[in-house]
């Protein structure tokens, strides 16, 4: 395992291009594009203000830089460095900006969620979509980029609009049976839209692409409900994490619950599968063992309890979860056996975890100068070599899974994985 030298960045804006060839980082006003392998600076763009948001287009040809305070979006081209585009939302303000999946349109959400402006880079056309709902996840594009679902609020009722991304044709518009819609997400195959209610009510609604209600699921009533939701890569499973510290798995045929994963404070051998282990910083222990629990203040809004993060591995075999009142622990579940596979206990609260896009390998960081990796074969923790004490706050995988961008507070570095993991593992253990 090798580490690159450390570069500066700001606002944790570091993105590897979707094709995996470039690394874009923002340093204050500047956008720096490097070659991932050589880390040579290829392009350097200067924006009008400090960049708040940066995003690659899907074809890796353009980079969007948003400066929300000024309501400005600037787009840069890699192929034509002197090409420029500036979108000014004017006095209406800007809170969110994103690419459309085709990489030729930019969707800007104005302040107060007044509207969504769709700017085309092909024509000069501007489209407005009214009544977008201000919620957790109000816009979602299907995986293949052909459809966009948008949550709307009209006459105190929730609606979902499905647009064809090609020409922003409104395909479907339907009312949802939610009290207060909190989010929506397409299944990876783009045929099912999961819509969930706000945390006041546990309710998941599943709509077909044509707007038919396929099924609805509610685990319980009168308590805080859904906190997170994730589709398995095969669209077979829908994992729902909730405030009751459980993850419920629905299947895609009957949309009924298959199983539920609890996150108990004490893990007994009976609960776990055969190969269960607890990986705490540098040692592996066998059950039973205790997990540190922070008692949440339930009187306050959004209590720190319940499953807030869910992530399926790329092959769909594993599910990683994080329960907020056990912030230092990441749970890995085996989706074939439907059982607990491993409990990764860290010394500090887990900031971020992400699966390798190619292999069942989980990388996680805790805001310390260490990188933690877990795979079914074992786990590794690596000290990031740096003088100043590089603290890893976030990380993101390269699309081929061979390298990893480690993002600190104002710096970043790349971590290159070795193909022969075993040897490095042993090296790391001896470190």
């Amino acid at each position: 395992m090798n580490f690159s030298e450390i570069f500066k960045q700001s606002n944790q804006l570091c993105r590897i291009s979707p094709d995996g060839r470039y690394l874009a980082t923002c340093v204050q006003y500047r956008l720096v594009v490097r070659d991932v392998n050589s880390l040579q600076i290829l392009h350097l763009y200067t924006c009008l203000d400090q960049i708040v948001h940066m995003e690659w287009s899907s074809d890796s040809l353009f980079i969007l830089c948003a400066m929300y305070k000024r309501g400005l979006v600037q787009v840069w081209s890699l192929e034509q460095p002197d090409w420029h585009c500036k979108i000014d939302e004017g006095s209406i303000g800007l809170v969110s900006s994103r690419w459309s999946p085709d990489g030729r349109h930019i969707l800007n959400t104005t302040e107060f969620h007044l509207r969504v402006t769709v700017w085309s880079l092909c024509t000069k056309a501007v489209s407005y979509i009214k009544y977008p709902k201000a919620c957790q996840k109000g816009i979602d594009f299907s995986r293949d980029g052909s459809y966009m679902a948008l949550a709307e609020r009209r006459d105190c009722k929730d609606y979902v609009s499905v647009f064809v991304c090609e020409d922003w044709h409104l395909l479907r518009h339907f009312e949802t049976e939610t009290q207060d819609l909190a989010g929506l997400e397409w299944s990876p195959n783009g045929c099912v839209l999961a819509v969930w209610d706000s945390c006041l009510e546990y309710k998941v609604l599943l709509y077909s692409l044509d707007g038919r209600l396929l099924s609805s699921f509610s685990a319980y009533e009168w308590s805080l409900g859904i906190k997170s939701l994730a589709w398995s890569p095969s669209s077979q499973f829908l994992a729902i994490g909730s405030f009751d510290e459980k993850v419920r798995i629905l299947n895609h045929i009957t949309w009924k619950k298959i199983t539920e994963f609890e996150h108990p404070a004490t893990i007994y051998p009976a609960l776990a599968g055969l190969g269960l282990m607890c990986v705490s910083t540098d040692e592996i222990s066998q059950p039973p063992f205790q997990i540190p629990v922070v008692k949440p203040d339930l009187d306050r809004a959004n209590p720190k309890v319940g499953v807030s993060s869910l992530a399926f591995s790329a092959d769909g075999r594993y599910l990683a979860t994080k329960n907020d009142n056990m912030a230092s622990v990441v749970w890995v579940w085996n989706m074939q056996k439907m059982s607990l596979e491993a409990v990764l206990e860290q010394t500090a609260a887990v900031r971020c975890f992400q699966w390798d896009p190619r292999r069942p390998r989980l990388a996680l960081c805790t805001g310390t100068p260490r990188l933690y990796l877990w795979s079914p074969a074992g786990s590794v923790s690596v000290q990031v070599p740096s003088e100043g004490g590089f603290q890893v706050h976030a990380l993101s995988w390269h699309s081929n899974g061979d390298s990893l961008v480690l993002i600190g507070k104002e710096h970043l570095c790349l971590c290159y994985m070795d193909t022969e993991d075993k040897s490095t593992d042993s090296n790391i253990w001896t470190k």
Partner: protein
Amino acid sequence: MGDWSMTSPLGVSMENSEISSISRVTLSSSRQNHDSLYSSSLPLSKSSHNVLSAFCIEENVPQCILYINQELSSLGLASMCIATPVEATLNSVPALNAMYELLQAQRRSQRSLEALEQDLLRTSSTLEHLQTGNYRLKDQLELLKREKSGLHEKERQLQLKIETLQSCLKSEKEEIQKLQNIIAGRASQYSHDAKRKERECVKLKERLGQLLIDKRDKKLAIDVLNYLGRSDGKRIQWKTGKAGTSHEGDMYKSLLNDYEARQQSLMVENSELKKVLQQMKRDMMYILSPHKPCAKASPGDDSPERGFPPAGLEGQDEVGECSRENLDQSCEKAREQLTYSIRLQWRRLKNHMEKLDSQVSLAQTQQQSGSEEAVPREVHEEEMQRMRLEVQQGKDFIHTQQQLLQKQLNSSFDDETAALLNDCYTLEEKERLKEEWRLFEEQKGNFERERKNFTEAAIRLGHEKKTFEEDRAAWLKNQFLNLTPFVDRKKYSLSDSQSALSIRSEPELQQSYTPAKLTKSSTYNEFSTTYSSISDGLPSTTELYRTLHLIQPETRHSKRGSWQEPSSPIRAENLFGKSKCSVRCRDPCILSLDKDGDSPI
């Protein structure tokens, strides 16, 4: 209560003293009456010195006597006048009698008085007791009454409390209802307000948007160097209705594709499952079919599996075949058959499993070792069957045996059993006879020894006889030669002695052996008879046997009529007992004979 118990003894004592004084008063009054009537002896004797107050004085003795007489008669004691009416003198005897009777009466009355007094005391004490009890009860009653009133009061208070509480409850309920109504109202108000606010917000947003649009915000602009081509390289199309329909078509196409993909996957899964099912079916048939003849062969087996006729199996096979064929053609048709056949087979499997379970449990109860598991099932079953048969046979055997035994006990033997028993008995007899034979052999040896002794004795006797004969001859010769005037006497004595000798000497010798013989075996008379015939040759033995009454006594009769034949063996024994002593003193006898013979001489 404490106070009460403290006071009661005081009261009792008071009562006691009162009552006793009263009784004394009554007693004294009765005394006085008595005194006046009877003029009791106590004051009389005391007042004898007191002349004035005395009842009888020198002068009025006759009157007194008369008076007393009258009194006595009136009391029923008299008619025996203590005094002759004429002389008016005290007749002492009846007077004494009367006095005695009076004394007796007085004593009796005294006693009864005492008893009555005691009774009175007792009753007074009981009265006292009852009175105290009464007091106590009264107190209790008072107390209870007070308690009752207290309780009544309490009850009334509680009733009041309940009423107040009920009213409270009602008011609370009303309050709750009110609050609930308020909450509901607030909720509706809130939701209404929220909606209103939201609407306002929307309105504001709209207005803002309108304003922004109207204002023609100069800033709102896109500044692009040159427009880009579409990512897919196509030209931009106009928005038309056609486009909309094409989108619809696309959507449905994608949906259809998804469904098709899903169906494909399901089909694949289905076919996999079908394959598994077919394999399962085949396996099941394989499992069940070899078991079939096994089950048929076993007579004791009554598992429900046997209920399936072989034809059914065939039919099922057909069904399976059918379903297999049909599966490829039309799932709809095949489904029912498939499910039917699966259910049927599943039932069979279940039955089979149950049967196996029961067999396993049976095997376990029979304590068969674990090595059995290595043995194939068929072999195991055969073994089981065989063992079962054996058990049955054993049971039958035991049963018949029991029956036979019963029969034998109840009734006479059968021919077979009799033979069997006879065999047993003959064996026993044989054993006994063998034992007897051994005894006989022993006895035979004894007899042989005895015979030897006898012969020896006989020889000795013969010798003695000879010498005796010689002696006699010598004596006769001597007698003959010197004749004396005591010829008669001598003759007599001679004849006597001769007879005595002839009688005595012979049996005495023989008898010396008989007691041993008799004591040894008194029951074997018949054997001794046969034996006697053997030992007949010797001349002395005949005499011996004669004395033993083993041979005909005719010879003796003919010889001597004086010999008394013993009628019973006991007699003979007695005789032998008598003769024993004589045997002992045989030689002295002879000597005495000699002496006898000598002494007269």
